[in-house]
């Protein structure tokens, strides 16, 4: 019993466990405060003033969004309203969304709210992935808005008989099993026209989120979006 080693003392390890856990938790909480500030949603004024937010405000649906290589960051980043040539957004070039490029802050927020509720109520995440999280039975939706399949030369506009990306997407969402793209089809989820509009707004907004370069090489082979 002579060797009273601290290493075999129960109390010592009990205290160590408490300290380690406490320290890790405090660090996580501190990081959470910092991250929360950085991932809070921007607003229309940010977009007007050219402030880049990791998660832009809902009115980002009035702008053209692309996904391009940033020299500074070393990977692709979402570019809103045109590229300044150095991989930063200019927030100038607009793009109509269901015929308008002047969605007000309230209207856009309402649309995004409806869309986010829609993605949850329709259980999108248990087939698709959003920001890479979810099930793996259907394509990732992180940058779905930028997918060349929905673009002017893609197959989906012709298939749905629509002239714009947003209308093609909304049509597909309402009647998915009429437009099979693969043996594995999307089921009819009873999505209404208004809900489809909201979900497309949600998808356009999601494509503007800065995901640190995920997914890599998006659309590298098929007529790259950032090549335009």
């Amino acid at each position, binding site marked *: 019993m002579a060797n009273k080693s601290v290493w075999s003392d*129960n109390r010592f390890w009990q205290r160590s466990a408490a300290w380690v856990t406490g320290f890790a938790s405090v660090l996580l909480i501190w990081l959470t405060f910092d991250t929360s500030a950085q*991932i809070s949603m921007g607003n229309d004024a940010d977009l007007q003033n050219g402030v880049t937010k990791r998660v832009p405000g809902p009115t980002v649906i009035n702008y053209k969004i692309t996904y391009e290589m940033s020299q500074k960051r070393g990977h692709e980043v979402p570019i809103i309203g045109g590229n300044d040539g150095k991989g930063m957004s200019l927030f100038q070039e607009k793009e109509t969304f269901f015929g308008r490029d002047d969605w007000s802050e309230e209207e856009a927020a309402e649309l995004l709210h409806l*869309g986010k509720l829609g993605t949850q*109520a329709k259980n999108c995440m248990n*087939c698709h992935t959003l*920001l890479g*999280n979810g099930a793996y*039975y259907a394509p990732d939706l992180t940058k779905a808005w930028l997918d060349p399949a929905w673009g002017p030369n893609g197959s989906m506009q012709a298939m749905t008989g629509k002239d714009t990306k947003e209308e093609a997407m909304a049509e597909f969402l309402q009647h998915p099993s009429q437009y099979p793209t693969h043996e594995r089809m999307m089921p009819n989820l009873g999505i209404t026209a208004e809900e489809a509009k909201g979900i497309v707004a949600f998808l356009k907004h999601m494509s503007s989120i800065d995901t640190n370069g995920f997914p890599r090489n998006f659309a590298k*082979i098929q007529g790259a979006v950032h090549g335009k």
Partner: protein
Amino acid sequence: MASNHLTGIGSESKQLATWYFTFAAILFGAQLLFGLVAAIQYVMPGFLFEVLDFSVARMLHINALVVWMVFAMFGAVYWLLPDETGIETVGIKIGKLLYWIFVAAIAVVVLVYLFIQVGPADETSIWFIHEGREYIEAPRWADFGIVVVALGFVGNLFLTGIKGKQTGIVTVLMADMIAFAGLYLAGMFFTDNITVDQYWWWWVIHLWVEATWEVYVGSIAAYGLITMIGAHRKTVEMWLWIEVAMLFGSGILGLGHHYFWIGTPEYWWEIGALFSALEPLPLVAMFIHVLYDWGKTQGAEMNAEHTDEDNVRSVIKNKPAFTWFVLNAFGNFLGAGIWGFFHTLPQVNLYTHGTQFTSAHGHLAFFGAYATILVGMMYIAIQGTNGIKVMKHTKSSIWAVSMITGGVVGMTVALTIAGYVQVLVSRAQMGATWAGYFDGQSGMWFAQAMDWRLIMGAVTFIGFLLLVKDFLSTGKNPVHER
């Protein structure tokens, strides 16, 4: 106190534990059935299309998984409390009432999932159908129910721990279970900001399965080593504290590996990489620990009996449970450790994130780290309720453990191959588009991997049926020493 673990007769806490275990086993079966439906859909996409779609089958598959594990975890705590504290669990009447509330709520949730499936895009769907957030889909009303039930459970645990003898195992469980219940609150709100949504969502999922659940497993393993092979309480408990330090030290900030790509800042790359590289270490340590205790106690037995190695009595008092516990030590390391480490560094995760790799890891880790030890606890309960001194393997217990383990490992290997195809075709080359995704899915290797996954899933299910047969019959089997 050390001796009454052998008998569950007369303890209400242990009776409640067997209720929890029984319902857990039923949900385990449901999990496998819906998993089979989803696996069939990968192979035959038309199967039950617009009747029971993949999204519904998959939601039931993963929810049944989470809920059966929570049930078995609660059950295991109710089982060990009288042994550890030396007294009957406080508030057992409330515990039994909460059990029935919990079971009824789950039945309602499952029926709604099955027959209503989706609702309109408004708050009522979130409150009454499901929340559409992977793993924690339970509708909001059920969230509140879960919080009430969990508080009741934690209350019983605390009151018993304070009133009775407070061992190291009980202390760790008390701290761990309150964190486990509290973390659920982080997943109970709605936000339009998908990045914020997923940030807090991971607080629940990650801090459950890679922190609080792992610590829970550490405590259960400690209890199991004491009861099954008579390991020294002091060694085991000191070791438990070291595990807590290692698991929380690496696991809490290991959360960073979920924050690489969801819109969160870039510093999570470094934090996530560093702490998730450390995450396998406690799993390795837990593995050494089981080996050490087994070797030492068996060695002591040999010295005491002075017999040759062939005739020495085994120190193991419950062979099937011990088999599952050893599988746990190994499976935790393999599934959570190796299959996690595979794709945890951001450089590789950029390509593997959201592919079948994740699914492979999920299958092996949930099985290896949690299913194994909980099944082991069920065997301990069967031993206790039937008054068995030394429990032996039966034919079906051996077949069950072999088929379930073989099936899960087979599924994992198949999914890993599928994930590899996806990484190469859909991610590295085609850049994650719609077309790229389906090119990857149509590859021959991918398709064959999915066939094998289904076959291995069926093997797992047959193994499960044998396990149930063994659960129901082994208690009365004359091979055990009574």
